[in-house]
């Protein structure tokens, strides 16, 4: 019997169970592996949630920088064909630290500086650069333009001629400006055989004389929209007419700083005011000494005055910072006048805006999810509910500078 049972046991050694030692080792290994899996799972979950948000935030930062940089670098590019060829800062200020347009216009509310808004104008590459044929009253609804040699050609039947509309099309933004510092940006709402219909709210800022310039233009306003109640923090773009669109979400800070030419504008030698431009280093040209641009005295405008001693036309603006380097232009300097074209014009701008040579932008973005933001402070503009650890993604902030090429032509 004993012998038999031993035989059975021997035969089925695979069912003998584990010894205590084996059990302990097995359990220890299992515990280690399970422990490791859990130790890995916890942060992995955080990383899994966090990293896509981090890269999303970085992408938004890049988009913000790129979209503003590409417009800022073009700022001030002027017409390059026809009689008024030259950068826009020889006529008016193409960079303005506030919102300009038909809807919610800042100058209409007497606001002439906002740290978180900028308006940029430039003439894009376009053949549509010409002059207006007839004088335009303030309430003009349509206009005719001169056919110039740079205008595109059209072929109607056998007749091949310059386009009577100089290539202007429905929906195009256009700029009308003269030599006195007046300007208006309008939208072309429809076109007829020979006339352009204009779209703008209210009325033009002045009556334009025949021969004033008209060109296709790009108008861009960037500003920060902050609405804590609905948690909307957006970098916005406004086209100057009727459309506001968000560019980037979760932008919590946007600031513009301006650096300028320390030297005041001067008249270029050997450039008679009656000839072709540019006539000045920058800024609108003054009239000749016998002519008046009301309400300025004879021979003067917002940028130039007649020196009482020498009788020559000299700058109205001071030399800044010893005349060297790039000088920070403060809020006070940019909204204290002298005003161009004059202090009562609806589209007036501070003559110091003509000095702008470089714009510094501060842009700050936050992570989109509230659960990834910690308490408000240095790292977080708007606090969140993060429990810390891997689920803590601080705001990212960057500063960049742009030197608009067409506002630094002599530099």
């Amino acid at each position: 019997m004993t012998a038999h049972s031993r035989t059975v046991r021997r035969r089925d050694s695979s069912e003998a169970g584990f010894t205590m030692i084996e059990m302990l080792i097995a359990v220890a290994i299992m515990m280690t592996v399970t422990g490791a899996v859990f130790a890995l799972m916890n942060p992995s979950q955080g990383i899994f949630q966090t990293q896509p948000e981090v890269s999303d935030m970085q992408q938004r930062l890049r988009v913000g920088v790129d979209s503003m940089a590409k417009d800022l670098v073009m700022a001030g590019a002027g017409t390059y064909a026809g009689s008024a060829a030259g950068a826009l800062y020889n006529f008016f200020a193409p960079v303005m630290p506030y919102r300009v347009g038909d809807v919610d216009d800042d100058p209409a509310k007497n606001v002439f500086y906002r740290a978180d808004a900028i308006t940029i104008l430039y003439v894009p590459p376009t053949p549509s650069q010409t002059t207006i044929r007839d004088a335009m009253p303030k309430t003009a609804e349509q206009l005719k333009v001169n056919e110039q040699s740079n205008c595109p050609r059209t072929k109607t039947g056998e007749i091949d001629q310059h386009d009577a509309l100089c290539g202007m099309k429905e929906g195009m933004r256009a700029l009308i400006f003269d030599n006195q510092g007046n300007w208006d940006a309008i939208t072309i709402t429809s076109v007829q055989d020979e006339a352009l219909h204009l779209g703008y709210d209210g009325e033009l800022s002045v009556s334009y004389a025949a021969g004033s310039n008209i060109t296709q233009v790009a108008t861009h306003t960037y500003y920060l929209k902050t609405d804590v109640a609905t948690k909307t923090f957006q970098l916005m773009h406004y086209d100057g007419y009727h459309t506001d669109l968000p560019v980037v979400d979760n932008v919590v800070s946007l600031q513009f700083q301006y650096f300028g030419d320390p030297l005041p504008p001067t008249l270029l030698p050997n450039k008679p005011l009656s000839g072709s431009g540019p006539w000045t280093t920058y800024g609108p040209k003054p009239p000749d000494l016998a002519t008046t641009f009301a309400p300025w005295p004879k021979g003067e405008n917002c940028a130039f005055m007649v020196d009482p001693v020498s009788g020559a036309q000299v700058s109205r603006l001071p030399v800044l910072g010893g005349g060297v380097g790039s000088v920070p232009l403060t809020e006070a300097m940019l909204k204290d006048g002298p005003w161009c074209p004059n202090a009562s014009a609806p589209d007036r701008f501070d003559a110091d805006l003509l000095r702008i040579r470089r714009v510094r932008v501060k842009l700050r973005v936050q992570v989109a999810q509230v659960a990834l933001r910690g308490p408000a402070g240095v790292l977080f503009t708007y606090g969140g509910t993060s429990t810390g650890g891997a689920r803590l993604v601080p705001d990212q902030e960057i500063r960049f500078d742009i030197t608009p090429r067409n506002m630094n032509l002599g530099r």
Partner: protein
Amino acid sequence: MALARSRFSNFSLSDSEAGFSLAEVMVATGLLATALVAVAQLFAISTSANTSSRNTTFATVLAEQKLEQLRALTWGFDPLGLPVSDITTNTAVTPETPVGGTGLAPSPAKALQENTPGYVDYVDAWGNILGGGQNSPDGGMYVRRWSIEPLPTNPNNTLILQVLVARIRDRGTADLGNVARLPDEARLITVKTRKSQ
């Protein structure tokens, strides 16, 4: 007895129900652990890839900023046609000062390989310019070196501007010999020419 035997033999015959040996379990566990470590590394890689992309973005934007600062300095002709050059503006501080710096004055030969006062500044993680000098002030995260060389064929009127932005760290052999750009760093080159109005 016969019954019992047949039962036992049935069990022992069925090999598939025999369970695993310790060695098998160990091998399986080892494989699992290796796989887990590999997967865990993916998380680490994704984190470091994001960090690296952030550093590359910042380095590029900061390099661009320095180039734009240099571009804005006067390098033209006055209304009478005489050349005007800004060689004193200090762009390493905020706001820039009209004196105390090097402006667009030509840089020493090794300005991109070593911190050369006048041709270097330091920036913190938020993009604030902290100042120049041989060593970074507290809080510096990026070092920006720039060089200004006259173009050999037109030395009086044309400059080659270069900027190299790197995390503040020992760049090792990258600072020896030719100018090198390591991963996460940015190096931009442009040309500036005097223009008359």
